[in-house]
């Protein structure tokens, strides 16, 4: 019985993240539009877009290879698995020990590796420029992310997200300098990883300013739908990750009853809404950077995270 329940919770988590991801993106778009005094599309518009794309034919470039066709599925699989391993409403899920936080980051790294390859497959300058900039951004964002993981893992004594969330929920945590530095760095990395303003603009179609959109320019139909869904999942993953590490209230433990679980789901949706709202406010209040300012922005995140880790090595009380 317990095994079936565990399976059910794991499956519920996978479905929950898949279904909520377009809603979060739609919510961010709506809030941004309202902040700009526009009406904005409906909250459900991302779902309609995905369904429309799924029904359309794929138009492939003449020299696209088999890899180009396989990559959307690979990216979707890697991102979905990563997103379903981050605790949302209940920690200690059945397969939560499959991959710790370092492995989750690396799974997203696999997705990015293949996306950058897809950008180079057709052999146009757009794809190349996107891939080239994407790996430059990743070469700074990924070490910054790993240093953040180190800093938090050294406080919590684990890289396992369930254990980390439980620790952050306990009164032992207190206010720490290294946690504060880690949070700032994590927000910077999350913005860069999700191709948001000021690093990249998800709405732009001006070739020279885009990174992510340039890589996926040749994708259409169901392939594009999968890639869009993957980036929505990735945004959801980062918001859940920040919520799980820095606002773990309401996440049910392994033995939580139905009432607590409902509370967990409610708290999770609330946290997503708060995260999406803050993101929209931040994006409307800042301008996009030049590409070569991005390394400084991310370098700051790397230094903050390194400082946080160093503080943990020097003293246990920071």
């Amino acid at each position, binding site marked *: 019985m317990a095994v079936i329940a565990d399976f059910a919770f794991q499956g519920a988590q996978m479905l929950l993240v898949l279904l909520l991801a377009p809603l979060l993106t739609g919510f961010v778009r709506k809030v941004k539009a309202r902040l700009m005094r526009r009406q904005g599309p409906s909250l459900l518009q991302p779902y309609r877009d995905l369904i429309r794309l799924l029904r359309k034919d794929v138009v492939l470039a003449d*020299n696209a290879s088999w890899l180009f066709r396989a990559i959307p599925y690979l990216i979707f699989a890697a991102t979905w698995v990563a997103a379903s391993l981050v605790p949302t409403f209940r920690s200690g899920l059945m397969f939560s020990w499959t991959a710790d936080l370092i492995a989750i980051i690396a799974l997203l790294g696999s997705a990015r590796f293949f996306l950058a390859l897809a950008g180079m497959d057709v052999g146009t300058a757009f794809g190349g420029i996107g891939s080239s900039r994407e790996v430059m951004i990743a070469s700074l964002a990924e070490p910054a992310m790993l240093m953040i993981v180190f800093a938090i893992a050294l406080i919590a004594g684990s890289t396992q997200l369930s254990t980390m969330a439980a620790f952050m929920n306990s009164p032992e945590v207190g206010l720490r300098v290294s946690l504060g530095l880690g949070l700032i760095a994590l927000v910077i990395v999350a913005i860069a990883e999700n191709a948001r303003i000021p690093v990249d603009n998800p709405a732009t179609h001006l070739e020279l300013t885009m990174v992510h959109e340039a890589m996926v320019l040749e994708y259409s139909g169901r392939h594009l739908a999968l890639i869009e869904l993957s980036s929505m999942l990735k945004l959801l993953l980062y918001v859940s990750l920040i919520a799980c590490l820095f606002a773990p209230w309401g996440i049910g433990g392994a033995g939580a009853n139905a009432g607590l679980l409902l509370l967990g789901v409610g708290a999770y949706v609330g946290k997503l809404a708060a995260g999406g709202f803050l993101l929209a406010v931040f994006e409307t209040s800042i301008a996009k950077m030049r590409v070569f300012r991005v390394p400084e922005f991310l370098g700051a995140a790397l230094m903050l995270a390194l400082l946080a880790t160093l503080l943990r090595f020097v003293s246990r009380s920071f």
Partner: protein
Amino acid sequence: MVVTALECVLALLVLAPLAIALGASARASIIVYGASLLLTLALAIIALLVLLGHGPAAAVTLPLGLPWLGAHFRIDALSAFFLLVINLGGAAASLFALGYGRHEEEPARILPFYPAYLAGMNVVLLAADAFSFLVAWEVMSLTSWALVIAHHREPENLRAGFVYLLMAGFGTLMLLLTFGLLAGGSGAYDFDTIRAAHPSAGIAALVLILALLGAGSKAGLVPLHAWLPLAHPAAPSHVSALMSGVMTKVAVYGFIRIVFDLVGAPAWWWSMPVLALGAASAVMGVLYALMQRDLKRVLAYSTIENIGIVFVALGLALAFKAHAMEAAAALAFTAALLHVFNHSLFKNLLFCGAGAVLAATGERDLEKLGGLIHRMPQTAFVVLIGATAISALPPLNGFVSEWLTFQAILLSPQLPSWGLKLMVPAVGALLALSAALAAACFVRVFGIAFLGRPRSDAAVAARETDSNSLAAMYAMAALCFVAGILPGLLIDGLAPVTQMVVGHPMPAQGSIEWLSIVPIAESRSSYNGLLVFVFMTVSGVLGAFAIHRLASDKIRRGPAWGCGYPDAGPRTQYSADSFAQPIRRVFGTLIFSARETGEMPPPGSTAPARLTVTLRDPVWDALYAPIAAFVAFAAERLNLLQFLTIRRYLSLVFGALVLLLLVLAIWP
């Protein structure tokens, strides 16, 4: 067991004169590479049996070498593991060469040295006294030098051979001094006596430095790496695979044998130079790799990066061992060994892939490749697996060893010494940086060489490589995959080595449910490559199935989007240089003092615009160029001695005699 192993090595040695006798006949390469394949496979099986505890770890002494010493040979757990790595790599390279060797123009320059080179590496691992160790080390160096200059008509290869010979001589000299210090005045050169001797702290420190210089120069640690990116690409591709994938591991073995086994207990600061050189190699190696256009040179620089990762893990193991943290030391040491194993697999695979590309197109320059995934689909597939594995991406094997290294770093705040407390986080950050840059490097290699449109006629005319080469590459790709999803089995297999070297094995992984790996405790960290792979496959296949059934599965082909302009041709694609430009600008201006100068013709002129990029090699400028300049200067000065009169020569001789007699008189 050790006798059987020695017989296999002897057979390899006999193959060398046999190859000379066979000459350049067509059968010669089949006989030599076929026999090498069988013999290395036999040696790998012997090593595996010893490692799994089925064979006695016997020792044997032969009446060879120094008359009062004899030649000692032995297989223990450490040498058995490295024998396995070397002979797996050797077998794969031999199988690859069965097909690839047909493209060779002058096989007689390669065939005699190839089995001797394999034999030399094996004897280094089997040797149990300093004399046989050094002789075998020199055989390995000299035969590989002969293989590097096999294509001696290209002037670049001759220069590579010259630099390699110098650096190999330097490395052996350092090891000679190491063993001299270890053996002391009595000249007891066999390893058992050395191990029992326990040198004083000062001598042990000197031994560490000398071993780091000697083994590090062979392994390619920055700043002793200058020869490696010249020599490894110059050799024929299957030999490049051996030099990069396998010979660097022999150097790692030499370092472990001396520093972990022979010297005795390490001091607390020993790990610091090892960590510093390892971290510097990891980052510098991959940054160099990103700046290269030559496919094989990129791979050679990436070897430097991976050796850096191995040395970082070894440095951590030394630090933990010095502070008696056995469980953590076992974890770090296992990470190092696992990375040795993994790197030998994917680097062999990638060099073989580069060889297949070279044979199909005659090009090593990335800027002249492109679109090979359409013409060489199978090679592209296996190289993609190798590239994913070396970029440390789950669920393949490169990720597992990096993950274990990160777990070891997370244990290091418990180290009591302040120097290490400040150093280890910085090393961790550099390691993370090198992992991210490695992914960028292999996106560039695979994306430019295999994806996109062909950039030259040679790339258009490429054909799929032969079945022997493909079989070798598929075998290594399969091993990469298995090692990635079942790492627990490998870790358990390494337990005897860790037990022997750091005195404590990692917790047994075989009994953990679902074949996860748990280095310390499950609440702390765990990883399951098998489940990650199964999850990814299931969700990817389910997604594909659902979409194809419920939505649309139609495909139309059309031209790529070109903003409405007519087809601009393959030269408008991103090139290898332009792909690396953002990274060159972020990191290269600091490290390589990269400069870009653009030259725009005036309006109306039809002259082309030019972009010139200059890069400087900081290590060469700071270290090698001054030494070379000094040697040239001294030679110029000494040159005067050649033009003296007979009286001056006689007075020089007399002066030297008086000087030596004075030295003798003053010497106590």
